[in-house]
């Protein structure tokens, strides 16, 4: 049985991906320390608050109360690293051509539904795909846009006077803070789905994000045909 090693994830993507993990974690953690001081958001259905961000036990368990100053210091330190890492990632995607593997294409949303149905075992066959399936394309593009959104809304609440045009564009200080908060919640949702999907996808898939390589089947395929695939 023939095997081939496929170079799946470039070195830069892997480093940027893994560096982003602790940076995003620190941004969310310091964000929580800040949010506690004015914890006003909840999940509302009509006039009923289904869930308030966050219950007291949540703060107590994590030791969050009365750490606003520390939260601000951390947030305004890690913001540079988080933004720089994200910027390098986007530039790398653009110049390396890796964006081709990530951007959704016409029909992606339709096929993403099939991917989701496949994931919950309703549909047997996955739609054809490249490195990532269409649900991944949508998710990974969305998370980049979320990062951009977090930087923009963050800037609007960090410098609401010097960037007054931006803050006004977002509907004012209060709305910008609201968006900044919900984008963070979306990041957390993304994180949990991502981890579950990686766990389901298995070790070889996870390992490829570390080593960059994945073993693929190449049964009976002459090298010439593989070269054609490369082109």
């Amino acid at each position, binding site marked *: *049985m*023939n*095997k*081939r*090693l*496929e*170079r799946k994830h470039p070195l830069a993507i892997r480093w940027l991906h893994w560096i982003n993990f*602790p940076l995003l974690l620190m941004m969310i953690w310091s964000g929580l320390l*800040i*949010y506690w*001081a*004015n914890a*006003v958001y909840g999940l509302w259905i009509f006039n009923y608050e289904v869930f308030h961000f966050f219950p007291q036990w949540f703060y107590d368990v994590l030791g969050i109360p009365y750490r606003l*100053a*520390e939260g*601000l*210091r*951390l947030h*305004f*330190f890690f913001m540079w690293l988080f933004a720089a890492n994200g910027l390098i990632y986007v530039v790398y995607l653009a110049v390396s*051509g890796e964006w*081709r*593997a990530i951007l*959704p*294409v016409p*029909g*992606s949303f339709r096929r993403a539904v099939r991917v989701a149905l496949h994931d919950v075992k309703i549909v047997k*066959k*996955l*739609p*054809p*795909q*490249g*490195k990532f399936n*269409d649900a991944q394309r949508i998710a990974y593009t969305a998370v980049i846009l979320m990062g951009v959104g977090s930087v923009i809304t963050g800037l609007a609440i*960090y*410098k*609401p*006077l*010097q960037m*007054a045009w931006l803050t*006004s564009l977002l509907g*004012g*200080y*209060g709305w910008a803070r609201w968006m900044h908060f919900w984008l963070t919640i979306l990041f957390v949702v993304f994180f949990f789905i991502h981890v579950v999907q990686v766990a389901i996808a298995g070790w070889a898939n996870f390992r490829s994000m*570390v*080593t*960059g*390589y994945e*073993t*693929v*089947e*190449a*049964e009976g*395929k002459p*090298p010439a045909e*593989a070269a054609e*695939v*490369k*082109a």
Partner: protein
Amino acid sequence: MKEKEEKVLLEKVRELQSDGDDTRENTARILNEKRVIGPPLDEKQAKAEMSKRSRRTFLIGGAAAITAFFGWRWMPDDAKMSLLRRTLEFNETVGRFFYKPSRLAPEFPSERISPRRVNGMIGMEQEHDQAAWSLNVGGVYGADEDLILSLDDLRALPRTAMITELMCIEGWSIIVQWAGVRFSDFAAKYSPKTIDGSRPDVAGRPDKLLPYVSLSTPDNGYFVGWDTASILHPQTLLAYEMNGEPLLPEHGAPLRLASPTKYGIKQIKRIGRIEFTTERPRDYWAESGYDWYSGL
């Protein structure tokens, strides 16, 4: 049996085959996504090659993760504090570089004025005695000693009113109507000394003025430091009225700062003394670990 099926599927995916005749279905083809595939290997070779790569990258990655985690964890508190403090100062440098006094905060119609909100009585624990109050001003050009001003002296200066948003560092904000004298108008009348001793030109050459302003309550219980550029912003007021009436004691009677250029912690209530200084002044909340500049 199931495993075999999945493998076939995987192979189809890897080889970028389309679903039937419709090649447009294949997202990778649409964007001309390229794959890099190594030469065919037998099972044993593939496993050996993969193990070699795994060992190396997991070692490097693991070492990097451990260094980062324990490096941050075991970093002494004072070193961490110093790093974060210096970052705040770096952010201040960036903020000052981009600061423009011509950029104004939005003003609001009077129906948007919020209910009052009291948040902080530090330095105002003693009851305010209007008869005993005066404003002491130090560092004034041409004066060797503190000037002692009354509220009438301030009321004699041009009155400015504005309805702006007050941002608290805690994350909330309210819309307030303020009236008082622009600090820049105050400084035009009672001008700070200059760094080179020349005659001050507050409007024309603000960069020549002493770079800092220190403000404190009469009991010295609360004190803030401002950079001169921010305090000369046209929307920084020495306010004596709030929401259309004289300042209430809990809002800083008889005189307080009001400015959308900095957080509420900098908008000191019940001002007793103002001093123009060369040195960066002490600041109550900066001493508790908040950003000294706190510029918005």
